[in-house]
């Protein structure tokens, strides 16, 4: 048995029954990474010594005792680097734990390594990482998606049992779809953002990337819940996200939004998603056609709101309190200008400039305020839809994984990769992507993701649908040949 091919819950069970030790788990993981990661570059760094030290202290009675969980380089783990795959934070060592990390530790899990990402979570391919892109385990000539591409790639390549990512416009669900794993974006406010480096504060959420649906539910049980350190965190009682697994979809109403089956949707992706929806129908769900009429405006709205918030959030990188500071500077303005010129990559600069423009005097009403009003319409679309259906089913990404370099010259074409995911962030609702088959391109099998969207705090419902589909198909067991 290859330990690293196990899911989180399988590993936990073996640890609990003392069939393997936490040290053996960490050892197997490090060996796998050493062998595989040169091809994938899913990790920016990992520290075997720290992981062994953590493994030695594990209390097997805890719910996730001894299981390493890979962490996206945007979440603070005390004593570990936290660089957001950016030059401006090179060498930064986190002085404290994010709330999700203290909760993982409290549950006995071992926060492990730093997974690669697009710089400051801005991107859909990990090609914006200052330290080189990650590669898709199903075809290493292709991107793993992004921005949590490293997290998705290491889960898919069995270089992690599970991972945490962050999702501002699709950054968990889109890479999960392209790499063939499960990725959940919780309801806005379900999971504390304390210790998550902020990109767009009204959209960001931390969530799990896993090998199966049960693992996503188990991780949500640990990381979700109110937090006094994050005032936007919803004061909702902790839910058992595994409670609805196994209940099936009989009698559930699932909405199929016509605006998600448009020109630009890859024909193989469309086929796989329609087959998956048909499969859910056979399992007893009732599928109804619905409309989310403002879908076509989601992209424009998102690319005003997210950069506007980012331009304010990233003002903190000024070369004074932490991070990179340019040398040989003359005066304060040059200090800021050069530090940020040399520290930030192209996409981060583009978004800060776009956001600054959208917020600037004379343009605020025309851009930012207008986008906020369209955001209201997008939210309303979803609340109207959820009055008729229990969940919405649609593609996660319009295409399978594309090739490295294919979209880097044209930012707009890169932004289109998130066209089916970003509306959920603006509405604050939850969504999960699960594997639903493969597209074939140039002789390679490329995973396709089915997205299931749910109303606020309905993580249990979408996980129930996801679980019913997963447990009656075999897609989640498929492994890339590496």
């Amino acid at each position, binding site marked *: 048995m290859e330990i690293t091919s196990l899911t989180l819950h399988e590993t936990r069970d073996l640890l609990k029954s003392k069939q393997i030790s936490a040290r053996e788990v960490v050892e197997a993981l490090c060996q796998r990474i050493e062998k595989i990661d040169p091809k994938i570059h899913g990790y920016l760094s990992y520290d075997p010594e720290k992981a062994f030290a953590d493994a030695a202290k594990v209390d097997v009675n805890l719910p996730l005792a001894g299981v390493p969980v890979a962490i996206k380089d945007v979440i603070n783990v005390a004593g570990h680097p936290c660089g957001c795959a950016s030059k401006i934070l090179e060498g930064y*060592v986190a002085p404290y734990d994010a709330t999700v990390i203290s909760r993982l530790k409290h549950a006995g899990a071992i926060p492990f390594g730093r997974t690669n990402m697009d710089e400051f979570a801005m991107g859909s391919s990990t090609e914006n990482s200052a330290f080189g892109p990650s590669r898709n385990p199903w075809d290493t000539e292709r991107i793993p998606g992004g921005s949590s591409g490293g997290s998705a790639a290491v889960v898919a390549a069995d270089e992690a049992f599970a991972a945490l990512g962050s999702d501002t416009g699709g950054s968990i669900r889109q890479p999960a779809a392209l790499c063939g794993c499960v990725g959940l974006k919780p309801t806005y*406010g379900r999971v504390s953002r304390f210790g998550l480096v902020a990109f767009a504060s009204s959209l960001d959420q931390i969530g799990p990337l896993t090998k199966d649906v049960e693992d996503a539910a188990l991780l949500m049980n640990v990381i979700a819940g109110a937090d006094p350190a994050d005032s936007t965190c919803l004061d909702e009682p902790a839910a058992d996200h595994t409670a609805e697994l196994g209940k099936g979809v009989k009698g559930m109403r699932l909405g199929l939004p016509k605006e998600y089956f448009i020109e630009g949707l890859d024909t193989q992706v469309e086929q796989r998603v329609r087959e998956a929806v048909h499969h859910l129908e056979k399992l007893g769900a009732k599928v109804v056609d619905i409309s989310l009429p403002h879908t076509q405006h989601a992209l424009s709205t998102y690319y005003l709101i997210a950069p506007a918030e980012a331009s304010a959030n990233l003002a903190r990188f*000024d*070369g004074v309190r932490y991070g990179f500071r340019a040398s040989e500077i003359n005066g304060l303005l040059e200090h800021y200008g050069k530090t940020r010129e040399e520290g930030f990559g192209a996409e981060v600069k583009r978004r*800060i*400039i776009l956001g600054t423009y959208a917020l600037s005097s004379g343009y605020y009403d025309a851009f930012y305020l207008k986008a906020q*009003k369209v*955001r*209201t319409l997008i939210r309303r679309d979803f609340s109207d839809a959820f009055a008729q259906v229990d969940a919405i089913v649609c593609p996660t990404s319009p295409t399978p994984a594309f090739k490295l370099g294919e979209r880097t010259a044209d930012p707009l074409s890169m932004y289109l990769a998130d066209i089916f995911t970003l509306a959920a962030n603006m509405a604050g609702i939850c969504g999960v992507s699960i594997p639903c088959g493969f597209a074939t391109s140039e002789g390679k099998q490329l995973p396709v993701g089915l997205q299931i969207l749910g109303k606020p705090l309905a993580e249990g419902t979408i996980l129930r649908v996801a679980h019913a589909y997963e447990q009656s198909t075999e897609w989640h067991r498929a492994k890339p040949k590496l």
Partner: protein
Amino acid sequence: MSSTKFDVQYVAELARISLTPEEINTFQSQLGHVLEHVEKLNQLDLANVEPTAHSFPIYNVFREDREQPSLPHDLALSNAPRQAHGLFIVTKVVE
């Protein structure tokens, strides 16, 4: 909502980011395309629509006014590019 007045160099100065002449050219054209795309929002009638800043606005989140441990001084300074005597060194603001 016209993007013709969009001057990348001026906005970059507002954002305190220096740019090379090549970057100015590239960004001007790339962001010009993005702004053209965004202009589609003009098709919508938004006269009676309230803006949404936040999906679930929560107001007045208070906690008990109790003393709590804060980040230790040395840890707060541990990532500073320049520091001395327990303080951050900043670039001179006034000549």
